[in-house]
Protein backbone atom coordinates (compact mmCIF):
# COMPACT_ATOMS: atom_id res chain seq x y z
CA UNK A 1 0.00 0.00 0.00
CA UNK A 2 1.39 3.46 -0.85
CA UNK A 3 2.27 5.60 2.12
CA UNK A 4 -0.61 7.99 2.75
CA UNK A 5 -0.10 11.73 2.64
CA UNK A 6 0.01 13.54 5.97
CA UNK A 7 -1.71 15.26 7.56
CA UNK A 8 -4.58 12.95 6.85
CA UNK A 9 -8.22 13.71 7.74
CA UNK A 10 -10.41 10.66 8.24
CA UNK A 11 -13.97 10.06 9.40
CA UNK A 12 -14.41 7.94 12.50
CA UNK A 13 -18.07 6.97 12.64
CA UNK A 14 -20.92 9.44 12.38
CA UNK A 15 -19.73 12.14 14.75
CA UNK A 16 -15.91 12.21 14.80
CA UNK A 17 -12.91 13.14 12.69
CA UNK A 18 -9.33 12.00 13.17
CA UNK A 19 -6.52 14.21 11.90
CA UNK A 20 -3.28 12.21 11.76
CA UNK A 21 0.16 13.76 11.32
CA UNK A 22 2.05 10.49 10.88
CA UNK A 23 1.51 6.75 11.17
CA UNK A 24 4.49 6.24 13.45
CA UNK A 25 5.49 8.08 16.59
CA UNK A 26 7.88 10.97 16.27
CA UNK A 27 8.46 13.87 18.64
CA UNK A 28 8.00 16.16 15.63
CA UNK A 29 4.60 14.77 14.63
CA UNK A 30 3.51 14.77 18.27
CA UNK A 31 4.45 18.45 18.58
CA UNK A 32 2.34 19.21 15.49
CA UNK A 33 -0.54 17.27 17.06
CA UNK A 34 -0.35 19.31 20.28
CA UNK A 35 -0.11 22.60 18.38
CA UNK A 36 -2.98 21.75 16.04
CA UNK A 37 -5.29 20.69 18.85
CA UNK A 38 -4.60 23.97 20.66
CA UNK A 39 -5.45 25.81 17.44
CA UNK A 40 -8.72 23.88 17.01
CA UNK A 41 -9.64 24.64 20.62
CA UNK A 42 -8.87 28.32 20.02
CA UNK A 43 -11.17 28.35 16.99
CA UNK A 44 -14.03 27.24 19.28
CA UNK A 45 -16.05 26.03 16.32
CA UNK A 46 -19.74 25.75 17.03
CA UNK A 47 -20.92 22.14 17.41
CA UNK A 48 -17.41 20.78 17.98
CA UNK A 49 -17.97 19.22 21.37
CA UNK A 50 -14.66 17.68 22.32
CA UNK A 51 -11.08 17.41 21.16
CA UNK A 52 -8.33 15.07 22.29
CA UNK A 53 -4.95 13.87 21.09
CA UNK A 54 -3.19 10.56 20.69
CA UNK A 55 0.53 10.10 20.02
CA UNK A 56 0.10 11.22 16.43
CA UNK A 57 -3.48 12.41 15.84
CA UNK A 58 -6.04 15.00 16.85
CA UNK A 59 -9.55 13.74 17.50
CA UNK A 60 -12.64 15.93 17.07
CA UNK A 61 -16.11 14.97 18.19
CA UNK A 62 -18.98 17.06 16.88
CA UNK A 63 -22.75 17.16 16.72
CA UNK A 64 -23.70 16.02 13.18
CA UNK A 65 -27.19 17.47 13.63
CA UNK A 66 -25.72 20.94 13.77
CA UNK A 67 -22.60 20.60 11.64
CA UNK A 68 -22.19 18.41 8.60
CA UNK A 69 -19.08 16.38 7.91
CA UNK A 70 -18.10 18.19 4.72
CA UNK A 71 -18.26 21.62 6.35
CA UNK A 72 -16.13 20.56 9.28
CA UNK A 73 -13.66 18.78 6.98
CA UNK A 74 -13.32 21.98 4.94
CA UNK A 75 -12.63 24.00 8.08
CA UNK A 76 -10.11 21.47 9.34
CA UNK A 77 -8.30 21.37 5.99
CA UNK A 78 -8.20 25.15 5.79
CA UNK A 79 -6.71 25.32 9.28
CA UNK A 80 -4.19 22.60 8.41
CA UNK A 81 -3.06 24.61 5.41
CA UNK A 82 -2.82 27.84 7.37
CA UNK A 83 0.70 26.99 8.49
CA UNK A 84 3.21 24.20 9.00
CA UNK A 85 2.05 22.79 12.30
CA UNK A 86 5.34 20.99 12.81
CA UNK A 87 6.97 24.39 13.21
CA UNK A 88 4.21 25.94 15.30
CA UNK A 89 5.85 25.22 18.64
CA UNK A 90 4.25 23.58 21.64
CA UNK A 91 1.16 25.24 23.13
CA UNK A 92 1.31 27.63 26.08
CA UNK A 93 0.42 26.77 29.64
CA UNK A 94 2.53 23.65 29.81
CA UNK A 95 4.28 22.61 33.02
CA UNK A 96 7.44 20.76 33.99
CA UNK A 97 6.96 18.13 36.68
CA UNK A 98 9.86 16.91 38.80
CA UNK A 99 8.62 13.69 40.28
CA UNK A 100 10.39 11.70 43.00
CA UNK A 101 10.67 8.03 42.14
CA UNK A 102 12.36 4.88 43.35
CA UNK A 103 13.91 3.16 40.38
CA UNK A 104 14.77 -0.55 40.57
CA UNK A 105 14.83 -2.85 43.60
CA UNK A 106 11.56 -4.13 45.03
CA UNK A 107 9.85 -0.99 43.74
CA UNK A 108 10.92 -1.67 40.15
CA UNK A 109 11.71 -5.37 39.89
CA UNK A 110 12.10 -5.41 36.10
CA UNK A 111 14.59 -2.54 35.87
CA UNK A 112 17.57 -4.91 35.70
CA UNK A 113 16.00 -6.75 32.79
CA UNK A 114 15.16 -3.52 30.96
CA UNK A 115 18.69 -2.21 31.51
CA UNK A 116 20.18 -5.44 30.19
CA UNK A 117 18.01 -5.24 27.07
CA UNK A 118 19.17 -1.65 26.63
CA UNK A 119 22.77 -2.87 26.91
CA UNK A 120 23.71 -1.06 30.11
CA UNK A 121 23.96 -1.55 33.84
CA UNK A 122 21.03 -0.77 36.13
CA UNK A 123 22.86 2.28 37.50
CA UNK A 124 23.50 3.58 33.99
CA UNK A 125 19.85 3.06 33.11
CA UNK A 126 18.72 5.00 36.19
CA UNK A 127 21.12 7.78 35.31
CA UNK A 128 19.90 7.91 31.70
CA UNK A 129 16.23 7.98 32.74
CA UNK A 130 16.82 10.68 35.36
CA UNK A 131 18.72 12.78 32.83
CA UNK A 132 15.89 12.77 30.28
CA UNK A 133 13.15 15.33 30.17
CA UNK A 134 10.17 13.36 28.94
CA UNK A 135 7.19 14.90 27.19
CA UNK A 136 3.65 13.82 28.03
CA UNK A 137 3.00 12.61 24.49
CA UNK A 138 -0.60 11.75 25.22
CA UNK A 139 -2.87 10.65 28.05
CA UNK A 140 -5.06 7.66 27.63
CA UNK A 141 -5.91 4.02 28.01
CA UNK A 142 -6.89 4.67 31.63
CA UNK A 143 -7.84 7.97 33.33
CA UNK A 144 -4.76 10.15 33.83
CA UNK A 145 -2.27 7.66 32.40
CA UNK A 146 0.55 9.50 30.59
CA UNK A 147 2.63 8.12 27.75
CA UNK A 148 6.03 9.77 28.24
CA UNK A 149 8.77 10.04 25.66
CA UNK A 150 11.22 9.70 24.32
CA UNK A 151 14.04 7.92 26.11
CA UNK A 152 17.38 7.42 24.32
CA UNK A 153 17.50 4.94 21.41
CA UNK A 154 18.93 2.18 23.59
CA UNK A 155 15.58 1.87 25.34
CA UNK A 156 13.74 0.81 22.19
CA UNK A 157 12.81 -2.48 23.83
CA UNK A 158 9.67 -4.52 23.21
CA UNK A 159 6.90 -5.00 25.71
CA UNK A 160 6.80 -8.32 27.55
CA UNK A 161 4.63 -11.00 26.02
CA UNK A 162 3.45 -12.03 29.48
CA UNK A 163 1.62 -9.50 31.57
CA UNK A 164 2.81 -8.52 35.02
CA UNK A 165 -0.38 -9.08 37.00
CA UNK A 166 -0.26 -6.27 39.56
CA UNK A 167 1.71 -3.05 39.23
CA UNK A 168 0.66 -0.64 41.98
CA UNK A 169 -0.56 2.93 41.60
CA UNK A 170 2.37 5.15 40.66
CA UNK A 171 4.14 2.23 39.02
CA UNK A 172 6.45 3.10 36.13
CA UNK A 173 6.52 1.02 32.97
CA UNK A 174 9.12 1.16 30.22
CA UNK A 175 9.04 0.00 26.57
CA UNK A 176 9.65 1.33 23.03
CA UNK A 177 11.54 4.43 24.27
CA UNK A 178 8.50 5.44 26.30
CA UNK A 179 7.44 5.32 29.91
CA UNK A 180 3.98 5.07 31.41
CA UNK A 181 2.96 5.98 34.95
CA UNK A 182 -0.04 4.03 36.21
CA UNK A 183 -2.73 6.08 38.02
CA UNK A 184 -4.30 2.93 39.47
CA UNK A 185 -3.12 -0.61 40.13
CA UNK A 186 -3.02 -2.41 36.82
CA UNK A 187 -1.70 -5.38 34.89
CA UNK A 188 0.69 -4.55 32.11
CA UNK A 189 3.16 -5.76 29.52
CA UNK A 190 5.43 -2.75 30.10
CA UNK A 191 8.51 -3.54 32.16
CA UNK A 192 7.95 -2.37 35.74
CA UNK A 193 11.04 -0.32 36.52
CA UNK A 194 10.07 1.92 39.39
CA UNK A 195 7.56 3.60 41.59
CA UNK A 196 6.72 7.32 41.44
CA UNK A 197 5.23 9.45 44.20
CA UNK A 198 2.42 10.80 42.06
CA UNK A 199 -1.35 10.90 41.90
CA UNK A 200 -2.48 11.26 38.29
CA UNK A 201 -6.21 11.11 38.99
CA UNK A 202 -7.62 12.79 42.10
CA UNK A 203 -11.37 12.32 41.81
CA UNK A 204 -12.51 14.89 44.32
CA UNK A 205 -10.02 17.63 43.40
CA UNK A 206 -10.81 20.83 41.48
CA UNK A 207 -8.30 19.73 38.86
CA UNK A 208 -8.61 15.94 39.02
CA UNK A 209 -6.08 15.29 36.26
CA UNK A 210 -2.66 16.71 37.11
CA UNK A 211 -0.96 16.13 33.77
CA UNK A 212 -1.85 17.45 30.34
CA UNK A 213 -0.47 16.34 27.01
CA UNK A 214 2.51 18.56 26.24
CA UNK A 215 3.68 18.82 29.86
CA UNK A 216 7.18 17.57 30.65
CA UNK A 217 8.26 15.12 33.31
CA UNK A 218 11.67 14.50 34.83
CA UNK A 219 12.09 11.74 37.38
CA UNK A 220 14.22 12.40 40.44
CA UNK A 221 15.62 9.15 41.86
CA UNK A 222 15.11 8.99 45.63
CA UNK A 223 15.50 6.50 48.44
CA UNK A 224 12.60 4.36 49.58
CA UNK A 225 12.23 6.53 52.70
CA UNK A 226 12.08 9.75 50.68
CA UNK A 227 9.61 8.14 48.33
CA UNK A 228 7.36 7.09 51.20
CA UNK A 229 7.48 10.60 52.67
CA UNK A 230 6.59 12.06 49.29
CA UNK A 231 3.65 9.67 48.93
CA UNK A 232 2.42 10.62 52.40
CA UNK A 233 2.57 14.30 51.46
CA UNK A 234 0.96 13.98 48.02
CA UNK A 235 -2.28 15.67 48.93
CA UNK A 236 -0.55 19.00 49.39
CA UNK A 237 2.76 18.25 47.71
CA UNK A 238 1.63 17.40 44.20
CA UNK A 239 1.34 20.96 42.90
CA UNK A 240 4.78 21.82 44.30
CA UNK A 241 6.29 19.33 41.83
CA UNK A 242 5.21 21.50 38.89
CA UNK A 243 6.67 24.69 37.47
CA UNK A 244 5.57 26.63 34.38
CA UNK A 245 7.38 25.86 31.13
CA UNK A 246 8.34 28.69 28.82
Amino acid at each position, binding site marked *: MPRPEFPQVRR*MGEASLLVSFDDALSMRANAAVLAFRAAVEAEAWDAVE*ETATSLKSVYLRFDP*DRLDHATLEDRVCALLEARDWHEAGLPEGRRLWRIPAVLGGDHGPQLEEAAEMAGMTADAAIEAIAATRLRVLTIGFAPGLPYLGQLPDAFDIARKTELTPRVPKGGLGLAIRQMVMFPVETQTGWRWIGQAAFDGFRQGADAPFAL*KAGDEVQYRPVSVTEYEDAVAGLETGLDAMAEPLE
Partner: protein
Amino acid sequence: MSVRLHIVKAGPGLSLQDFGRPGYLASGLSRGGAMDPLALAEGAALMRMQAEEALAIEMAGAGGRFRAEGGDLLIALTGAPMQARLDGARLHWPGSYLLREGAELEIGGASAGSYGYLSVAGLDAPSILGARSAHLAGGIGGALSSGTRLDAQPAPNAGGLTLTAQDRFSGGLIRVLPSVQTDQFGDDARGRFEATEFRKDARASRMGARMAHDGDGFSQDAHLAILSEIIVPGDIQVIGDGAPFVLLPECQTMGGYPRIATVIAADLPRVAQAAPGTALRFRFVELEEALKARAAAARHRKALPDGVTPRIRDPHDIPDLLSYQLVGGVVSAKAEE
Protein backbone atom coordinates in the same frame (compact mmCIF):
# COMPACT_ATOMS: atom_id res chain seq x y z
CA MET B 1 -35.34 10.90 58.02
CA SER B 2 -34.80 10.72 54.32
CA VAL B 3 -36.34 8.15 52.05
CA ARG B 4 -33.91 5.50 50.95
CA LEU B 5 -33.63 2.47 48.76
CA HIS B 6 -32.07 -0.39 50.68
CA ILE B 7 -30.31 -2.95 48.52
CA VAL B 8 -31.01 -6.01 50.63
CA LYS B 9 -29.31 -8.41 48.24
CA ALA B 10 -27.31 -7.20 45.24
CA GLY B 11 -26.87 -9.22 42.08
CA PRO B 12 -23.33 -9.43 40.70
CA GLY B 13 -23.49 -6.52 38.26
CA LEU B 14 -25.30 -3.58 39.82
CA SER B 15 -24.05 -0.03 39.33
CA LEU B 16 -25.45 3.50 39.26
CA GLN B 17 -25.70 4.84 35.74
CA ASP B 18 -26.72 8.06 34.02
CA PHE B 19 -25.85 9.39 30.58
CA GLY B 20 -22.13 9.32 31.37
CA ARG B 21 -19.48 12.04 31.49
CA PRO B 22 -18.45 13.17 28.02
CA GLY B 23 -15.51 15.53 27.61
CA TYR B 24 -12.65 13.71 29.36
CA LEU B 25 -11.20 11.77 26.44
CA ALA B 26 -8.09 13.97 26.55
CA SER B 27 -7.57 12.79 30.12
CA GLY B 28 -8.04 9.14 29.30
CA LEU B 29 -11.58 8.69 30.55
CA SER B 30 -14.24 7.26 28.23
CA ARG B 31 -17.77 8.58 28.42
CA GLY B 32 -19.23 5.60 30.27
CA GLY B 33 -22.85 5.82 31.35
CA ALA B 34 -25.75 3.45 30.78
CA MET B 35 -25.25 0.63 28.31
CA ASP B 36 -28.83 1.27 27.16
CA PRO B 37 -29.46 5.02 27.51
CA LEU B 38 -32.97 4.67 26.09
CA ALA B 39 -33.89 2.65 29.18
CA LEU B 40 -33.03 5.67 31.38
CA ALA B 41 -35.29 7.91 29.29
CA GLU B 42 -38.05 5.30 29.44
CA GLY B 43 -37.69 5.13 33.21
CA ALA B 44 -37.97 8.90 33.49
CA ALA B 45 -41.05 8.97 31.25
CA LEU B 46 -42.72 6.23 33.30
CA MET B 47 -42.12 8.24 36.49
CA ARG B 48 -43.13 11.54 34.83
CA MET B 49 -39.65 12.93 35.53
CA GLN B 50 -37.09 14.79 33.41
CA ALA B 51 -34.87 12.42 31.42
CA GLU B 52 -31.83 14.73 31.66
CA GLU B 53 -31.61 14.09 35.40
CA ALA B 54 -32.05 10.34 35.11
CA LEU B 55 -30.01 8.13 37.41
CA ALA B 56 -30.82 4.45 37.72
CA ILE B 57 -29.44 1.18 38.98
CA GLU B 58 -28.16 -0.77 36.00
CA MET B 59 -28.48 -4.52 36.53
CA ALA B 60 -26.33 -6.84 34.43
CA GLY B 61 -28.10 -10.15 33.88
CA ALA B 62 -30.09 -10.10 37.12
CA GLY B 63 -31.19 -7.68 39.83
CA GLY B 64 -31.51 -8.52 43.50
CA ARG B 65 -33.80 -7.64 46.40
CA PHE B 66 -34.67 -4.05 47.29
CA ARG B 67 -36.70 -2.35 50.00
CA ALA B 68 -38.02 1.17 50.58
CA GLU B 69 -37.02 2.75 53.90
CA GLY B 70 -38.34 5.89 55.55
CA GLY B 71 -41.26 6.29 53.15
CA ASP B 72 -42.74 5.21 49.85
CA LEU B 73 -40.63 5.26 46.68
CA LEU B 74 -41.63 5.63 43.06
CA ILE B 75 -39.77 3.18 40.84
CA ALA B 76 -39.64 2.25 37.19
CA LEU B 77 -38.44 -0.98 35.58
CA THR B 78 -37.01 -0.69 32.06
CA GLY B 79 -34.39 -2.20 29.75
CA ALA B 80 -33.94 -5.95 29.51
CA PRO B 81 -37.14 -7.53 30.89
CA MET B 82 -36.46 -9.35 34.16
CA GLN B 83 -38.61 -11.46 36.45
CA ALA B 84 -39.83 -8.95 39.02
CA ARG B 85 -42.09 -9.35 42.03
CA LEU B 86 -43.36 -6.87 44.57
CA ASP B 87 -44.21 -8.61 47.82
CA GLY B 88 -44.67 -11.75 45.76
CA ALA B 89 -46.89 -10.26 43.03
CA ARG B 90 -45.46 -10.41 39.54
CA LEU B 91 -44.76 -7.04 37.94
CA HIS B 92 -45.17 -6.03 34.32
CA TRP B 93 -41.95 -4.87 32.61
CA PRO B 94 -41.58 -2.02 31.62
CA GLY B 95 -43.66 -0.21 34.19
CA SER B 96 -43.68 2.23 37.09
CA TYR B 97 -44.78 1.26 40.59
CA LEU B 98 -45.13 2.57 44.08
CA LEU B 99 -42.71 0.77 46.36
CA ARG B 100 -44.31 1.18 49.76
CA GLU B 101 -42.18 1.52 52.85
CA GLY B 102 -41.07 -1.91 53.95
CA ALA B 103 -42.31 -3.65 50.80
CA GLU B 104 -39.81 -5.92 49.10
CA LEU B 105 -39.02 -5.78 45.41
CA GLU B 106 -37.36 -8.85 43.98
CA ILE B 107 -35.76 -8.71 40.54
CA GLY B 108 -34.51 -11.98 39.08
CA GLY B 109 -32.87 -12.92 35.80
CA ALA B 110 -33.39 -11.33 32.38
CA SER B 111 -35.71 -13.18 30.02
CA ALA B 112 -34.23 -11.31 27.04
CA GLY B 113 -31.30 -8.93 26.68
CA SER B 114 -28.62 -8.21 29.28
CA TYR B 115 -29.15 -4.94 31.15
CA GLY B 116 -32.25 -4.11 33.17
CA TYR B 117 -32.74 -0.76 34.89
CA LEU B 118 -34.31 0.09 38.22
CA SER B 119 -35.07 3.81 38.25
CA VAL B 120 -36.01 5.44 41.54
CA ALA B 121 -37.52 8.93 41.71
CA GLY B 122 -35.01 11.37 43.22
CA LEU B 123 -32.23 8.80 43.48
CA ASP B 124 -29.06 10.64 44.38
CA ALA B 125 -25.35 10.05 44.60
CA PRO B 126 -22.27 12.30 44.72
CA SER B 127 -21.31 13.90 41.43
CA ILE B 128 -17.76 13.21 40.28
CA LEU B 129 -16.52 15.05 37.18
CA GLY B 130 -20.04 16.19 36.45
CA ALA B 131 -21.83 12.85 36.57
CA ARG B 132 -23.09 10.40 39.16
CA SER B 133 -22.54 7.19 37.20
CA ALA B 134 -20.01 4.59 38.19
CA HIS B 135 -17.14 4.10 35.74
CA LEU B 136 -15.94 0.72 36.91
CA ALA B 137 -12.92 0.46 34.61
CA GLY B 138 -11.86 4.01 35.44
CA GLY B 139 -12.16 3.49 39.19
CA ILE B 140 -15.02 5.97 39.65
CA GLY B 141 -17.65 4.67 42.03
CA GLY B 142 -18.06 0.93 42.06
CA ALA B 143 -20.41 -1.98 41.90
CA LEU B 144 -23.31 -1.71 44.34
CA SER B 145 -23.16 -4.31 47.07
CA SER B 146 -25.70 -5.85 49.44
CA GLY B 147 -26.50 -3.57 52.35
CA THR B 148 -26.07 -0.33 50.40
CA ARG B 149 -28.62 2.39 51.10
CA LEU B 150 -29.22 5.08 48.48
CA ASP B 151 -30.90 8.43 49.09
CA ALA B 152 -34.07 9.15 47.12
CA GLN B 153 -37.14 11.41 47.26
CA PRO B 154 -40.59 10.57 48.59
CA ALA B 155 -42.74 9.21 45.76
CA PRO B 156 -44.12 12.17 43.73
CA ASN B 157 -46.84 9.98 42.19
CA ALA B 158 -48.08 6.41 42.40
CA GLY B 159 -46.74 5.13 39.07
CA GLY B 160 -49.02 2.64 37.40
CA LEU B 161 -47.75 3.46 33.91
CA THR B 162 -46.27 1.42 31.11
CA LEU B 163 -45.05 1.92 27.55
CA THR B 164 -44.20 -0.13 24.49
CA ALA B 165 -40.46 -0.72 24.58
CA GLN B 166 -38.51 -0.65 21.33
CA ASP B 167 -36.96 -4.09 20.95
CA ARG B 168 -33.21 -3.86 21.31
CA PHE B 169 -32.85 -7.10 23.26
CA SER B 170 -32.57 -9.70 20.54
CA GLY B 171 -29.46 -8.86 18.49
CA GLY B 172 -30.06 -8.98 14.75
CA LEU B 173 -28.68 -6.71 12.06
CA ILE B 174 -26.28 -4.03 13.28
CA ARG B 175 -25.50 -1.10 10.97
CA VAL B 176 -21.89 0.03 10.76
CA LEU B 177 -19.86 2.77 9.10
CA PRO B 178 -16.28 2.51 7.87
CA SER B 179 -13.62 3.45 10.41
CA VAL B 180 -10.01 4.55 10.07
CA GLN B 181 -8.52 1.17 9.12
CA THR B 182 -11.48 -0.31 7.22
CA ASP B 183 -9.63 0.07 3.88
CA GLN B 184 -6.71 -2.01 5.16
CA PHE B 185 -8.90 -5.09 5.52
CA GLY B 186 -9.55 -5.52 1.80
CA ASP B 187 -12.77 -6.39 -0.03
CA ASP B 188 -12.65 -10.06 0.91
CA ALA B 189 -12.44 -9.50 4.66
CA ARG B 190 -15.07 -6.77 4.54
CA GLY B 191 -17.40 -9.02 2.54
CA ARG B 192 -16.87 -11.90 4.94
CA PHE B 193 -17.44 -9.55 7.87
CA GLU B 194 -20.86 -8.67 6.46
CA ALA B 195 -21.74 -12.25 5.54
CA THR B 196 -20.78 -13.84 8.86
CA GLU B 197 -23.23 -14.56 11.62
CA PHE B 198 -21.57 -13.72 14.93
CA ARG B 199 -22.51 -14.74 18.43
CA LYS B 200 -21.98 -12.43 21.37
CA ASP B 201 -19.31 -13.90 23.62
CA ALA B 202 -20.35 -14.58 27.20
CA ARG B 203 -17.39 -12.60 28.58
CA ALA B 204 -18.83 -9.25 27.48
CA SER B 205 -18.59 -6.40 29.96
CA ARG B 206 -19.32 -2.69 30.11
CA MET B 207 -16.00 -2.21 28.28
CA GLY B 208 -16.74 -4.29 25.23
CA ALA B 209 -18.00 -7.47 23.67
CA ARG B 210 -16.14 -10.04 21.61
CA MET B 211 -18.00 -11.40 18.60
CA ALA B 212 -17.46 -15.13 18.21
CA HIS B 213 -17.82 -16.86 14.86
CA ASP B 214 -16.91 -20.04 13.02
CA GLY B 215 -14.22 -19.90 10.35
CA ASP B 216 -11.18 -17.74 9.74
CA GLY B 217 -10.38 -14.60 11.67
CA PHE B 218 -10.36 -11.14 10.16
CA SER B 219 -6.73 -10.28 10.82
CA GLN B 220 -4.75 -8.60 8.08
CA ASP B 221 -1.06 -8.04 7.47
CA ALA B 222 -0.86 -4.46 8.70
CA HIS B 223 -2.25 -5.72 12.00
CA LEU B 224 0.92 -5.51 14.04
CA ALA B 225 1.98 -2.15 12.63
CA ILE B 226 -0.82 -0.13 14.20
CA LEU B 227 0.34 2.46 16.69
CA SER B 228 -2.08 3.01 19.60
CA GLU B 229 -4.79 5.43 18.56
CA ILE B 230 -7.88 7.00 20.12
CA ILE B 231 -10.82 4.59 20.26
CA VAL B 232 -14.43 5.31 21.18
CA PRO B 233 -17.56 3.28 21.95
CA GLY B 234 -18.94 1.63 18.83
CA ASP B 235 -15.55 1.02 17.24
CA ILE B 236 -14.98 -2.59 16.20
CA GLN B 237 -11.39 -3.67 16.74
CA VAL B 238 -10.10 -6.92 15.30
CA ILE B 239 -8.21 -8.33 18.26
CA GLY B 240 -5.27 -10.72 18.37
CA ASP B 241 -7.27 -13.89 17.72
CA GLY B 242 -8.93 -12.37 14.63
CA ALA B 243 -12.32 -11.83 16.28
CA PRO B 244 -14.14 -8.51 16.07
CA PHE B 245 -14.49 -6.79 19.44
CA VAL B 246 -17.13 -4.07 19.79
CA LEU B 247 -16.17 -1.30 22.19
CA LEU B 248 -18.89 -0.29 24.65
CA PRO B 249 -19.41 2.84 26.80
CA GLU B 250 -16.73 2.07 29.39
CA CYS B 251 -13.98 1.20 26.91
CA GLN B 252 -10.34 2.18 27.17
CA THR B 253 -9.49 5.37 25.28
CA MET B 254 -6.46 4.05 23.38
CA GLY B 255 -6.29 0.89 21.34
CA GLY B 256 -3.59 -0.74 19.29
CA TYR B 257 -5.77 -3.04 17.21
CA PRO B 258 -7.06 -2.11 13.74
CA ARG B 259 -10.68 -1.12 13.37
CA ILE B 260 -12.74 -2.81 10.67
CA ALA B 261 -15.84 -0.64 11.24
CA THR B 262 -17.77 1.36 13.80
CA VAL B 263 -21.33 0.68 14.95
CA ILE B 264 -23.76 3.55 14.37
CA ALA B 265 -24.85 5.16 17.63
CA ALA B 266 -28.49 4.19 17.14
CA ASP B 267 -27.61 0.48 17.00
CA LEU B 268 -24.96 0.29 19.74
CA PRO B 269 -27.50 -0.48 22.50
CA ARG B 270 -28.55 -3.56 20.49
CA VAL B 271 -24.98 -4.86 20.77
CA ALA B 272 -24.82 -3.95 24.46
CA GLN B 273 -28.19 -5.53 25.24
CA ALA B 274 -27.75 -8.76 23.24
CA ALA B 275 -27.60 -11.67 25.66
CA PRO B 276 -24.59 -14.04 25.52
CA GLY B 277 -24.87 -16.30 22.48
CA THR B 278 -27.30 -14.01 20.64
CA ALA B 279 -26.77 -13.88 16.86
CA LEU B 280 -25.59 -10.58 15.39
CA ARG B 281 -24.72 -9.54 11.85
CA PHE B 282 -23.09 -6.37 10.59
CA ARG B 283 -23.92 -4.36 7.47
CA PHE B 284 -22.12 -1.30 6.13
CA VAL B 285 -24.43 1.64 5.50
CA GLU B 286 -23.97 5.14 4.12
CA LEU B 287 -23.43 8.06 6.47
CA GLU B 288 -26.84 9.41 5.48
CA GLU B 289 -28.58 6.31 6.85
CA ALA B 290 -26.63 6.56 10.11
CA LEU B 291 -27.66 10.18 10.54
CA LYS B 292 -31.30 9.38 9.76
CA ALA B 293 -31.25 6.60 12.35
CA ARG B 294 -29.65 8.99 14.84
CA ALA B 295 -32.37 11.58 14.26
CA ALA B 296 -35.11 8.94 14.49
CA ALA B 297 -33.70 7.69 17.81
CA ALA B 298 -33.64 11.25 19.17
CA ARG B 299 -37.25 11.80 18.05
CA HIS B 300 -38.34 8.53 19.63
CA ARG B 301 -36.67 9.44 22.91
CA LYS B 302 -38.25 12.88 22.94
CA ALA B 303 -41.72 11.44 22.29
CA LEU B 304 -41.50 8.88 25.12
CA PRO B 305 -43.56 10.91 27.64
CA ASP B 306 -46.44 10.99 25.12
CA GLY B 307 -46.33 7.23 24.62
CA VAL B 308 -46.75 6.37 28.28
CA THR B 309 -50.11 4.81 29.16
CA PRO B 310 -51.84 3.61 32.33
CA ARG B 311 -51.16 -0.01 32.93
CA ILE B 312 -54.23 -2.16 32.50
CA ARG B 313 -54.22 -4.71 35.25
CA ASP B 314 -53.00 -7.99 33.99
CA PRO B 315 -54.41 -10.96 35.93
CA HIS B 316 -50.78 -11.87 36.69
CA ASP B 317 -50.48 -8.59 38.61
CA ILE B 318 -53.24 -9.44 41.01
CA PRO B 319 -51.83 -11.49 43.85
CA ASP B 320 -55.14 -12.35 45.43
CA LEU B 321 -56.94 -13.05 42.17
CA LEU B 322 -58.62 -16.12 43.58
CA SER B 323 -60.33 -14.11 46.26
CA TYR B 324 -62.02 -11.81 43.76
CA GLN B 325 -65.66 -12.29 43.04
CA LEU B 326 -65.15 -12.54 39.30
CA VAL B 327 -68.63 -13.60 38.50
CA GLY B 328 -71.56 -12.76 40.68
CA GLY B 329 -73.04 -15.69 42.49
CA VAL B 330 -70.04 -17.94 42.02
CA VAL B 331 -68.44 -19.13 45.21
CA SER B 332 -64.88 -17.89 45.64
CA ALA B 333 -62.39 -20.58 44.78
CA LYS B 334 -60.26 -19.46 47.71
CA ALA B 335 -62.99 -20.41 50.11
CA GLU B 336 -62.60 -24.03 49.14
CA GLU B 337 -58.96 -24.26 50.09
